[in-house]
């Protein structure tokens, strides 16, 4: 079945350093939708980015990601981490049905 892999459970960074959170996926569907959701402490997840176009960079709130179907990846990046970026980040996959499959999440901790 469909799956999403986020290899890092925890990423710790100093403020100002670049962020990269890994996401790879598996599906036989040729036109997947990929999403990044962010969940701050005691809040519900909210959409950060989404894409279904191969090799096209998508950006929002300083974060960006590019869907690469050749490598089945959708890594999340930001050039300079801020303290307020500390949160849980989930990569998710939709394959044209109604259900979204979530990765296990990556906790990002940004310190001063």
């Amino acid at each position, binding site marked *: 079945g469909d799956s999403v892999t986020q290899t890092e459970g925890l990423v710790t960074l100093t403020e100002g350093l670049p962020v990269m959170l890994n996401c790879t996926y598996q599906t036989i569907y040729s036109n997947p939708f990929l*999403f990044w*959701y962010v*969940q701050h402490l005691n809040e519900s*997840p909210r*959409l950060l980015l989404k894409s279904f176009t191969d090799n096209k960079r998508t950006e929002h709130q300083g974060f960006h990601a590019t869907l690469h179907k050749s490598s089945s990846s959708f890594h999340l990046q930001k050039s300079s981490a801020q303290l307020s970026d500390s949160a849980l980040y989930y990569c998710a996959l*939709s394959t044209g049905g*109604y259900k*979204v499959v*979530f990765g*296990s999440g990556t906790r990002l901790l940004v310190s001063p």
Partner: protein
Amino acid sequence: NSKVIQTPRYLVKGQGQKAKMRCIPEKGHPVVFWYQQNKNNEFKFLINFQNQEVLQQIDMTEKRFSAECPSNSPCSLEIQSSEAGDSALYLCASSWENSDYTFGSGTRLLVI
């Protein structure tokens, strides 16, 4: 403030008791989902609806949960006989077909 309204925010039940939570999806969204987020922050899909009809559900939900999404009334998820392992955050989300989710604030269930 989320456009998906979940109540109650917190729910405490004894083992064997029924536990019921409700969700009003974002206006116009035809698809409603329930997920369980455990203490490890992992998402488990429970059930989804499109226009009051069940689309998919997992075995656990079929056996121990009852859920419905009547027209002109809130959707609901009820655990028939709560178990300690059901303690989790229950997230309701709604969406258009094949689109990103809007999540509610969640119902945090504690089974003691």
